[in-house]
Every structure is written in C-alpha cells, then in structure tokens.
C-alpha cells in the first residue's frame, strides 16, 4: 500500500494544478472574503482546543488559515503574484501540500469555535473544507478516513455491517424491547411501507451501543409513533463525506437516505443522535444533491421534545437522580442550530441538570469531530486536545455526561479513561427511556407500531 507521504512525493505538476483547480472551484465570495481578511492578530489562538492543550504556533487557527491563505494570495491575487515575500504568498507545492494536510486534517476538527472568536469574523471551517476538497482531489485524504467513506459507498453504512447482521440486531433488540416493556406487540419495525417516520441511526449503535437504539425504540413505543427502520441502505445517518470533503461521494451517501425515504414512502426523515449526521443531512445534503428534499427532516431531539411538550410521553425525573451535564456537539449546535430541544428534554427527564461552562455555541469540541476519530495518525493529538472537554466535565461535578452524538460519545469514552473522569456517558434518548412513565402496554393503534 502506498502511504500518503509517498503519494505526496509522487505528485506531478498536473496533479498539483488539479488540486488547485478544485480548491478554486470550492470557493465562493464568502470564502474569498475570508481569505482576504485575516489580520494575524492571533486572538483566535485560545479559542482552539488544540492550542489550549498544546500552545504552539501550528495550533493557532490563524496559522492553519494562513497556510491556505498564502496559496490563495499567490495564485489568486495580484499582490501575491507581484510581491509574494511582502504579503506572505506561497505557491502550491509539495511542502505546502504537507502543511495543508497537517493543518486541515491533522490539527482541526472543523468545530468552528475560532469563527465566533475571530476579530474579523472569518468562517475558518468553510475555508478548510475547500482545502480538504483539494487534498481529496489529489487522493490525499488519510487512508482510514477515506476507508470509512468507501464503506458507506460500498456497503451502505460506514462500518460495513451486512444486511443480515443489521436485521438480526434489530430483531434481537425488538425481543429485548418486548421484555423490557412487557408488551409483546412492541416493535422495531423494518421496512414498514407508508410509515410516517423513517428513523436513521449511527452504525455504532447496532455494532457497539445497541441499548441506545433500544432506548430510541422505547421512546417511539411509548409515543405510539408510526415509524420504521430501513433494512437496505438508508438506515445509516452518518456521512463522512462531510469530512473528506469529496462532495460527490458525500452526495452519493446522502442519496441513500433520499432513496430509502422514496422506497418506503415515509414523510419525515428522523436523524438519530449524531452531530455530523445531522449537519450532513440537514444542511449540506441539499447542496451536495443540488435539490431540496421532498420530505421533512427532523432531529430525534426535536421529536422527543415535541412528545414531552405535547404530553404524548411522560417522564419522571426522579428516575434519573444523578447529576447530569450536556455536551454540545459542534455540528449539531454551533453549526446545526439545535441547542434548546435537548435542554428542554433533559430538564424534564433528570433531577439535576448542570450546564458546562461555556456551553451551547461557545462549547468546546470534544476533539473527535471533523473525522478525527477515523484518523489514527492524529490520535495522540485528538486525545490531548480533548483535555479541554475533560476539564469542562470535571468542573461540572456531573456523574453522567449526555452527548447527543455517537462520534462524540466514542471520544468522550476515551477521554473518560485517559483523564479518569469516572462518568457515565449516555444519549438523550437513554435518559428519556430511563425516565419514561408507562402504565403497562399502551393500547394498539391498528398500525402495529405499539
């Protein structure tokens, strides 16, 4: 297997030009403005969890941006062409490709916290996505991240779970749900044509966290929801195309969801608890596909919030007596705009809820975003950068950390060990399921969903 370093060494001038062309094609007026605007004030430094935990020049967001902006200046501005030394312009050569790779894949989780703290207001992740796209066009995405995308393209889910294993897991969880609820009619419906909601999950749930899927199913059961899962591609909500920034591949993965909705005739696509999955499907998907969805898309958090608000389900917070805090996934909250439903749900479902400081759009990335969990080469940096999140958790004194994102949960579990946090890590649905008040099996509604 050819390593990424060898691939960089072997880059031809034509391939470099292709990368530059793709970079240019991904820029719009907003990114061009950002690339002209940085004043190198450096005030962004402490907003980055990488810099906080390792205060070096290469971890300053403005430095990461400058690697990209230097190329922009050299190739796309007059001053950069005429006086490159004066304005810090540099050509797109192999050394710069290495700098880009290290900066935009190796030292950035695309969390966007720097944008809020930038003196100017530069949307750094949008620029870094263009740089990642250029690297992707030159076949320079870290292999393990690309393998995750390839799994989705080949198998319909990022963990290459076979259809048989997926269906077996769902059927097993259905039996578990029936035992838990005492209702032999409790279902995890598969491929129920005409169901109102298609519920999508992160493959980590069937693979490693089946209780999380069972908890969501229990909430649907209690709400007597008309819902289904898909057995064929379209059940996996993840889309690592958001991270390798190959928009064509990201679009193909999004298409799985659209096809499943059409195949099953559902009207609402419900995205389970996954930050990047929500961001990819809700915000980027229509752009990748260049069309609007012919269906409604909602977050599971929003669905649970509605159930509780309308009284469709009831909960007893005393059943969750431990102190609970909430992690805000960047793609769900800062970039996704979903910050309040999960808070309303938790305030109803737990006895003692404490916020992290800072929280909501100002929250720190756990360190696992931007595809970092899939890139082994940067694991040490990922764990180190997660130190900010670990400290935030410690400061709350919470016993349970709720994270509405399975990628974040994976990272938080590693941080739990590394920083000896001694906390439990759960999804919002798990907290709701634990607190559900049910008086025996609810009456059936004739749709077989209860």
């Amino acid at each position, binding site marked *: 297997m050819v390593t990424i370093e060898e691939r960089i060494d072997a880059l031809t001038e034509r391939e470099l030009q292709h990368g530059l062309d793709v970079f240019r094609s991904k820029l*719009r007026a*907003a990114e061009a403005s950002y690339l002209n605007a940085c004043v190198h*004030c450096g005030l962004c430094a402490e907003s980055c969890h990488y810099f906080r935990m390792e205060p070096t*020049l290469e971890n300053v967001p403005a430095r990461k941006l400058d690697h990209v902006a230097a190329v922009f200046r050299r190739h796309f501005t007059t001053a950069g062409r005429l006086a490159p030394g004066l304005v810090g312009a540099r050509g797109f050569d192999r050394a710069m490709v290495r700098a880009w790779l290290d900066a935009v894949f190796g030292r950035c989780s695309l969390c966007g916290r720097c944008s809020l*703290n930038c003196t100017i207001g530069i949307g750094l992740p949008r620029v870094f996505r263009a740089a990642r796209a250029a690297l992707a066009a030159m076949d320079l995405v870290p292999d393990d991240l690309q393998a995750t995308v390839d799994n989705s393209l080949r198998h319909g889910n990022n963990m290459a779970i076979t259809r048989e294993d997926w269906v077996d897991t769902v059927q097993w969880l259905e039996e578990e749900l029936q035992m838990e609820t005492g209702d032999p009619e409790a279902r995890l419906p598969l491929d129920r044509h005409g169901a109102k909601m298609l519920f999508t999950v992160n493959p980590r749930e069937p693979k490693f966290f089946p209780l999380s899927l069972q908890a969501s199913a229990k909430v649907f059961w209690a709400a007597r929801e008309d819902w289904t899962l898909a057995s064929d591609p379209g059940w996996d909500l993840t889309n690592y195309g958001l991270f390798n920034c190959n928009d064509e591949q990201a679009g193909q993965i999004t298409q799985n969801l659209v096809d499943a909705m059409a195949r099953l005739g559902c009207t609402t696509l419900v995205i389970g608890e996954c930050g990047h999955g929500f961001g990819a499907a809700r915000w*980027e998907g*229509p752009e990748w596909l260049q*069309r*609007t969805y012919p269906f409604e898309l909602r977050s599971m958090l929003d669905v649970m919030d509605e159930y509780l608000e309308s009284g469709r389900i009831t909960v007893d917070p005393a059943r969750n007596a431990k102190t609970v805090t909430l992690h805000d996934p960047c793609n769900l909250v800062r970039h996704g705009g979903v910050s309040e439903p999960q808070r309303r749900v938790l305030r109803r479902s737990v006895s003692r809820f404490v916020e992290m400081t800072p929280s909501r759009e100002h929250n720190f990335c756990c360190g696992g975003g931007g595809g970092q969990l899939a890139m082994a080469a940067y694991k040490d940096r990922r764990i180190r950068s997660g130190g900010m999140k670990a400290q935030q958790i410690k400061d709350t004194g919470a016993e349970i950390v709720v994270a509405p994102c399975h990628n974040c949960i994976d990272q938080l579990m590693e941080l739990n060990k590394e920083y000896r946090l001694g906390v439990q890590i759960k999804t919002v649905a798990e907290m709701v399921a634990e607190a559900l008040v049910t008086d025996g099996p609810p009456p059936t509604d004739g749709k077989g969903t209860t």
Partner: protein
Amino acid sequence: MGQPLHLAVLAAAAWAVGALAVTWLRARGFGRRVLLAPAAGDRSAGVCYAFTRAMLPQAKESVRMHLPSYAAGMVFHLGTFAAFGVLAFVLAGVDLPAAVVWPARIATLAGALGGLALLAKRALTPHLRGLSSPDDFVANLLTTSFAALAGAASLRPQLQTAWLVVATMLLLYLPIGKIRHCIFFFSSRAYLGAFFGYRGTFPSAS
C-alpha cells in the same frame, strides 16, 4: 488644495479606492453559494447580531481573554479614523472646528500608542511573531506613523509635509496588504452572520 503633496494624497486615495473596489469585486466574482436547505433562522438577524452583540466581550471569549489587546485595537482604529478625518479637512483647505482640535489630537496620538503597543506585542509574542509576514509590520508602521504624525502635525505644523508623505504611502499600500481588511472586515462579518443566522445559531440563545 492644489499643492503637489495634496494632489499626491488625492491620487493615492483614488488608487486605494479603485484598487480596493477591484479586489472586492474579484472576491464577489467567486459567486454566491446557492442554499437549498430550508433556513432555521433569519440571515438578516444573524448579520445584525454579528455586527453588534457578537463583538462584545460577553459574546467573545477572545476579547475577554485579551482585553488590553482589544482596547489597544479599538484605540488604534479610532485614532486611524480620526487621522483620516483630519486629513479630509486639510485636503479640503478647511480649518478643523476648534471644539474637535484637541479630541482629534488625543485620539490620533492615543491611536498611535495603541498601534505601537500592538506592534510590540507582535514582535515579542512568539506565536504572533511566527504568524507575521513583512506585511504585518509594514501595515502597522505606516498606520501608526500616519496617526502619530496627524496628531504631531497639529502641534507642529512643520511636520505636515512628513505626514502627507506618510499618508500618500499608506494609501498606496492600503489595497496591497492586510489593511484591505477595511472592506473585507465588513463583508466577512456579514457572511459569517448570514451563515449562522441561516442555521439558527445567531442571534445567540445564551
């Protein structure tokens, strides 16, 4: 008006405006992103928030952590704007109203001090020094000199020639280096506000 140095300043200003306009139009030429996902919020409200509360210390950790730099930056910019105001009066051949002579002097001289403080910080802070290109120093030196001489020339008229020479240099340099943030600050913050407004993050709920 009509003096050679005045004409040089005006010519340099025309160059600055023209070159900045071209730079801005070239950036606009990259085109707009077509947004197909239904909005979760209001882009205009996001832009308003980005230019107001989002810039205050309450909403910006970077400001809270660097209040002296923030203050120096504010004073530096205020002094620079004041210096341009004084320059406009000089070029128009109109005396500065008596009531603003001292405020303008104080603002420009304080601005120069702010600029010097930021220059010293850039030179002395390792990660800032590492971030810097020659442009960062040239831009600061020209602007700081411009503000300082604006204040000094109002006290010692014999310095006015030097001030106008520096003003010409500053205007000639303005579109080339990072001082072009005088327009890209506004467009970038507007784009950022629109992005987060569209996604429902701005205005902040916290």
